[in-house]
């Protein structure tokens, strides 16, 4: 049996028909063909599939598509500005060599944006702890941690500036 699902993905209304067992990650990858969201495990450990659901980081392999009905989803494809300018966190990952093979990267970046939101001003120790749900096999995390510290500082500085303006 198929179910109708409707949700907002990267600002656009989308609809589809899914099985009850279809994961949000599968819906995003296979139905919407947004393949930036990756699946690196089947036990909710790796974090390659992190997206934002109503602004909060969620592992999309651990949520059913039918649970996302009516919600607003942001994937890695929706993070850069409409004109293509990279999000400050994406820029920071490039600047600090926070990615190698790029497979864990979309989940890492989406998680990093969430950390910046929840823990403004977090120190290195806190950032490392906050990454307990994301695995990277290439970088040894150093570039990722540096990127998150730098990217968070820039995001939060911009936030303060815009609040003051």
């Amino acid at each position, binding site marked *: 049996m198929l179910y109708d699902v409707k949700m907002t993905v990267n600002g656009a209304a989308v609809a589809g028909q899914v*099985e009850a*067992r279809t994961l949000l990650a599968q819906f995003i*990858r296979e139905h919407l*063909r*947004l*393949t*930036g*969201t*990756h*699946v*690196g*495990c*089947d*036990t909710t*450990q*790796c974090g*390659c599939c992190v997206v934002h659901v109503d602004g909060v980081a969620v592992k999309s392999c651990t949520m059913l598509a039918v649970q996302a009905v009516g919600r607003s989803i942001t*994937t*890695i*494809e929706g*993070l*850069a500005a409409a004109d293509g300018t*990279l999000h400050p966190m*994406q820029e920071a*990952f*490039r*600047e600090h*060599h926070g*990615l*190698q*093979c*790029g*497979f*864990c*990267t*979309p989940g890492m*970046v989406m998680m990093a944006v969430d950390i910046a939101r929840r823990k403004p001003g977090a120190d*290195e120790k806190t*950032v*490392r*702890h906050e*990454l*307990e749900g*994301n*695995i*990277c*096999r*290439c*970088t*040894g*995390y*150093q*570039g*990722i*941690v540096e990127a998150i510290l730098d990217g968070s500082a820039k995001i939060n500085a911009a936030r303060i500036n815009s609040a003051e303006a």
Partner: protein
Amino acid sequence: MGEFALGQPVSRFEDPRLLRGGGRYVDDMVLPNMAYGHVVRSPHAHARILKIDVSRARAAPGVVAVLTGEDWAKSGFGDLPTAGGKKRRDGGKMYRPKFPALTSDKVRYVGDPVVFVVADTAARAQDAAELVEIDYEPLPAVTDSIRAAEAGAPLVHEDCENNICFVHLEGDKAKTDAAIAAARHVVRRKFRLSRVYAATMETRGSIGDYDRAADRYTCYTTLQRALNFREELSATLHVPESKLRVVAGDIGGSFGMKSGVFNEVGMVLLASKTLSRPVKWTASRSEAFLADAHGRDNHTEAELALDERGKFTALRVRSVNNVGAYTQPGSDSGSYSNLGTLAGVYTTPAVHVDVTGCYTNTNIMRPFRGNGRPEAAFVIERLVDIAADELGVDPAELRRRNMISPDAMPFQTGLSFNYDCGEFEKVLDGALEMVDYKGFEARRAAARERGKLRGIGISYTIEKAAGPGFEGAEVRFDRTGSITLVAGSVTQGQGHETVFKQIVSDRLGIHPDEIHYLQGDTDQVFLGEGTGGSRTSALGGSAVFSATEKVVAKARRIAAHMLQVEEVDYAEGVFTSPKTNRSLTMREVARSAMSPKNLPQGMEIGLNANAVFHASRQNYPNGCHIIEVEIDPETGVTSIERYVVTDDVGVVMNPKLLKGQIVGGIAQGVGQMVMEEIRFDDQSGQILTGSFMDYAMPHAELFPHIDIKAMPTPTKTNLLGVKGAGEAGCVGALPAMANAMVDALSHLGVKDIVMPATPERVWRMIEEAKRAPA
């Protein structure tokens, strides 16, 4: 063009695409009318197959094909290629089993492929796979290499006596035995080099796409060496290479693991040929643990002999290595091709190594970052620390006393390595200074005050990189003067695109944004051996450099012709001559080269060049790692407090990427030492660590900031003076971490440590040491 010159910390050109979610990994691809395969795997480590019934699966919704070993046998395809070239102890040929993509008589490890179910969706293929019925007669299994070689052990292949695949001997046995017999001190130890898993974040996957009209196969897959892969595939399918196209997209990490032609590649190609439609298979993570190759896994006994001054006089090593249930070409190379690392940076005159490779009821083994280097480095660098402890000499001092001095270069070690250059003592001193070695005892005492056991561990390791071989590169000027750069090597995240574009941009004056990088497609790449063994910077980089040299040489002649002068000067992409105030850019020359009127008489049109760089000698990256740890005796938890590295990887092409390689390697080495391990149940042969819930992957919290300083001694073995950097971090980390942990516990009487040194194990060691009579 200084901005992109070699040596600059250029940010990667591949990143914007990957950061936007624009990577194209094999599972991201969907071809028209594609079907999906699911592999039914053996639940037993060793069993005879009595009956396979696929009738219910075949009738299930959406199923379009169900393939078994019988279909494979009838297909006209051959066996998968296996490792060769070695001998057994009696001089006979190594044992090479038959290796069909789907087995039909026996299963030999948990995960051995038996049936391939193909349906119109992946979910339906998986559902139908549940309906396949296979009757097995379980047999006793053996998963450990030493037990496999014992008399009476279950035979993985019935006609392979004692499960012994091959024996490899290296060094001077008589000289070594004599030196050990005569030695003042001999340090002896047994080491268990655990079995670990590359655990690339992207699992393996393949799409087979047979074009019946053209009678040609395309395979999109995860690999490291596109042309070598095609060669092996050609031998497997009994199809000429010209009828095969192999394409790698983005590869989500490999570390040696994805390099082989695995069973599933054969399955998707056979299914595609059967169905005349593309067929995709992607491993789930649970499946990857069962179906991927694992790494390391040996038992080693080693002896280091020293004279009265603490000089090493001989090293003798015997190891029994696990080769898994089957081999692939080179899958066993970790057992023999990097033993040279055992000789270390030391003058030890006599070395002998005796390696036995054994079949077991376990997954295929493959190179995993270092491929024998970390194992060898662990053995020698642990032995040095044990010797220092037994002799009461400082471990840094004992290393210094035995190091090969720069004036002794070139230096032939007691094994195969012949070092061309290296300043080991200087690099050691660099690390000792970085870590403030002299101040360590004060830090240990301060930690003790806080109830923590602080230890320091040194490793100084050396390995070979870019073993003799070749690599190809091609610079194609497009008609308007932009460039398509084609490389024979294949990146799995190392950043080839960036350093290659740096070279081309710097030499030819074309902005990197106007260079398109192409790799991994056998229809495009003319020559190359691909990636592995830390070879790309030295061989691939030199090939790219060499291609740009050819372009410059031809462009000079064209520019001189156009400027009507005898000779031109060339710098930063511009041709000039003191005899004229006109100049030409490389782009102008490239565009002009498309028209014969601009060319000297008889010159070929266009400004394209391909080059092959061949190195007859390998290079020897080396370096010092020093780690300080603190162990909490109440919990057994080890915290890495400080990590410094001084590394000689020759000329640094891009310091940002170099750090990334070293730190990434360190994480895998430390991971093996403290948490990772593939474990099997001794009796049933079942894998006990079959998911990320059981197989502990290193997380960000495990590491401190790692400080790395490059201390290069350029090598002359390639055009760029670079040494390999891909494996160095992993090689140094494993022994340095062990040495630091043993040092933290040695006052309790702990003399050795088992990998993985988990908190539970460390805690038990501390408790047992406390109870042991003084």
